[in-house]
């Protein structure tokens, strides 16, 4: 295994692992803030206990999101130094802004929220959890603008053997980046929504703290459905942007081999990369793919065979991840509708509750598939049409990465398992009956 492959696997592992925790952070911060605000407005103790309960679970998850994020910042330099030098003028500031605007905000105010619970007024701690949520979401914006630039580089000029910034405005208004943001962040909101639905379902099935969990359920049901629908809408806009700017990725996502107009959407499709065609192609809806991609039933879609072989992304991972992601998206909408319809008396529908509990992992999977489409679908480019991944690695020995990659996998697997176990333990323990005496501590 050469240093390029090892480094790619390492980055993929680190990024996918980081993204096990970030979506929940993005959404649960807002949900906790909502519950706490509802407490402020209604004075209902159930909402206060809910805010503390969901906030505690948020805190356990947040820590792992933070520490796995540092890994990624380091990794641009450690494993991808050629990339860092080439794009640092544009990519670097986006990361530095993320740290300055967002990381300080979320890290400071989550501590204010937790440790200040008794010391500060409810209004101040409520503001603190809102600021934490805002901070996390601002951080998502800047990193997605950075990734958006990798997918669709704008506002730069090639000079001095590298990409140099020509227009900061173009970089921060890059539609590709914004559409990534409008699609990725709601996916985090849905992860959080189903997290709350699933755990609430568990307690409702066991008839524990029914009043609190009914209220949690109701808010989370509406939240989940709204954002699941937003994901579908922004997903469509985003795919349209991909079709415009990254036709190879579109062709791989949809396994289009031959260039043609009025391309149908096939409900059942199995591509074969070696044969450069689809070996199963059934249940076609005429013209639908052209419409989805270009909003025109007669639009021409360029097929993979008309791109040079070394510029095509790997078809199987891109295709299957995309399809599974969309399938999950639709399932979540259906489950969301069901939860919303039954939101007033969910405890009377144990079948639904069991299914919701079992479905908690689905949004997580959707997020991972989405990122595989985004990143694997961009290959062989690390910056689309500007720099290939194979040119981007550091001049380091493969041996170093042969040691660090398994080390990451082991350490992350252990910490991840501990995190999910600890979340499960506290989730099942349920909300505290009353607040701890004395000062709030660890």
């Amino acid at each position, binding site marked *: 295994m050469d240093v390029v492959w090892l480094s790619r696997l390492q980055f993929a592992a680190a990024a996918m692992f980081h993204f096990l925790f970030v979506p929940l952070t993005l959404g649960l911060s807002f949900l906790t803030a909502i519950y706490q605000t509802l407490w402020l407005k209604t004075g209902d103790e159930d909402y206060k206990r809910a805010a503390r309960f969901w906030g505690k679970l948020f805190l356990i998850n947040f820590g792992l999101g933070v520490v796995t994020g540092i890994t990624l910042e380091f990794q641009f330099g450690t494993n991808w130094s050629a990339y860092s030098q080439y794009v640092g003028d544009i990519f670097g500031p986006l990361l530095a802004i993320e740290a300055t605007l967002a990381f300080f905000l979320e890290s400071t105010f989550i501590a204010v929220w937790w440790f200040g619970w008794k010391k500060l007024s409810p209004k101040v701690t409520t503001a603190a959890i809102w600021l934490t949520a805002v901070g996390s979401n601002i951080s998502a914006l800047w990193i997605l603008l950075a990734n958006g630039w990798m997918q669709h580089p704008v506002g730069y000029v090639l000079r001095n053997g590298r990409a140099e910034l020509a227009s*900061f405005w173009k970089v921060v208004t890059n539609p590709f980046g914004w559409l990534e943001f409008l699609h990725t962040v709601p996916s985090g909101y849905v992860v959080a929504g189903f997290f709350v639905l699933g755990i609430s379902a568990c307690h409702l099935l066991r008839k524990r703290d029914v009043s609190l969990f009914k209220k949690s359920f109701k808010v989370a049901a509406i939240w989940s459905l709204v954002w699941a629908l937003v994901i579908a809408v922004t997903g469509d806009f985003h795919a349209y942007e991909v079709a415009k700017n990254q036709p190879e990725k579109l062709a791989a996502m949809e396994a289009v081999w031959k260039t043609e107009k009025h391309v149908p959407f096939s409900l059942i499709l199995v591509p074969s990369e070696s044969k450069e065609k689809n070996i199963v192609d059934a249940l076609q809806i005429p013209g639908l793919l052209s419409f989805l991609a270009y909003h025109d039933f007669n639009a021409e879609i360029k097929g993979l065979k008309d791109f040079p072989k070394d510029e095509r992304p790997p078809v199987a991972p891109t295709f299957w991840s995309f399809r599974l992601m969309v399938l999950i998206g639709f399932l979540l909408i259906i489950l969301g509708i069901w939860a919303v319809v039954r939101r007033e008396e969910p405890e009377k529908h144990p079948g639904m509750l069991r299914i919701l509990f079992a479905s908690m992992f689905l949004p997580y999977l959707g997020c991972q598939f989405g990122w595989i489409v985004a990143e694997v679908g961009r290959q062989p480019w690390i910056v689309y049409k500007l720099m290939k991944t194979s040119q981007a690695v550091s001049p380091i020995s493969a041996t170093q990465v042969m040691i660090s990659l398994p080390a990451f996998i082991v350490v992350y697997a252990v910490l991840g398992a501990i995190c999910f176990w600890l979340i499960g333990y506290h989730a099942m323990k349920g909300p505290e009956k009353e607040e701890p005496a004395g000062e709030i501590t660890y």
Partner: protein
Amino acid sequence: MEGNAFQIVWFILWAILWTGYFVLDGFDLGAGSLIYVLGRTEEDRRAIYNSIGPFWDGNEVWLITAGGATFAAFPKTYAVMFSAFYSALLLLLFCLIIRGVAVEYRNKFDSKAWKTLWDVGFFLGSVLPAFLLGVAFANIFEGIPIDKNGIYHGSFWTLLHPYSIIAGVFFVICFAMHGANWIAFRTEGELSERAGSVARKLWGLSVVLAAIFFLASYLSTNLWDNYARHLGLLVFPAIAVIGFFVVPGGLVTKNYLMAWIGSCLVILGFSAWAFAGLFPNMLPSSLNPAWSLTCFNSSSSLLTLEIMTAVALIFVPIMLGYTFWAYKIFAFNKKSSQPAQ
């Protein structure tokens, strides 16, 4: 690229970010290093964890920002430095990961085995990063074997040599003194007294190591060269020396906040001394000075530096404002938290 004022501005901001990181994460890494020395009982240990609880995460963000600023303002230095220090950086990373998780998870489950395990993680995740940071920066001060293409001709072991090991030990002891002062300030009763007494011993050790480190830097690096040319820069090591007087002044009078401010001055003075001595280098080449990376030959374009400056001017004061406010409500009002059960 021709030299411009923004490159100098960003060298200074880069130095300030690293200095801020050492002053802030220094005391929580130091506190963690002392978990076994000072944490004799379960109550003691909980008190130590809680003394840094509201602060450690925000402090660590200074590291992320310093790294991000290096990337944004000096991408060539970022690229060469991070790939050359591969193994040391990843080791630092694993330690910081374990430290963060340990602080957050240790008290979330009631089992002696669980707590013991995380205490080990907290300890190693505090001591080792201090040591590795010392080693890393010593190599930055001394220079590493990079060629004219920025390719590093060495390994992890190249980074370990007498000067860098002295630096590593110095960082560990200095951070520990800083952490002891913080624990003394933030806790009460017997634990606070013991922390003060440990701080005194660490202070003595730090003074000796500081002298050794100043001397070793004279022998192994060019850090003192700028000082010969610009005597005004001596204000920086003077701050460190003043700090070394303020610390025992505070410890003797049991004004632990003053002692902590003293150790802040020590770390601030040392960092400023080192970065002022390093200027304009950012990563010297031990093979050939002409191949050194400086703030003039490794920076981003002028436009990027200008934009980053605007961002910094607007948002850093805001960040400093709410950071100071958080410290005020959790630490600097004199009814500081009791170590609760």
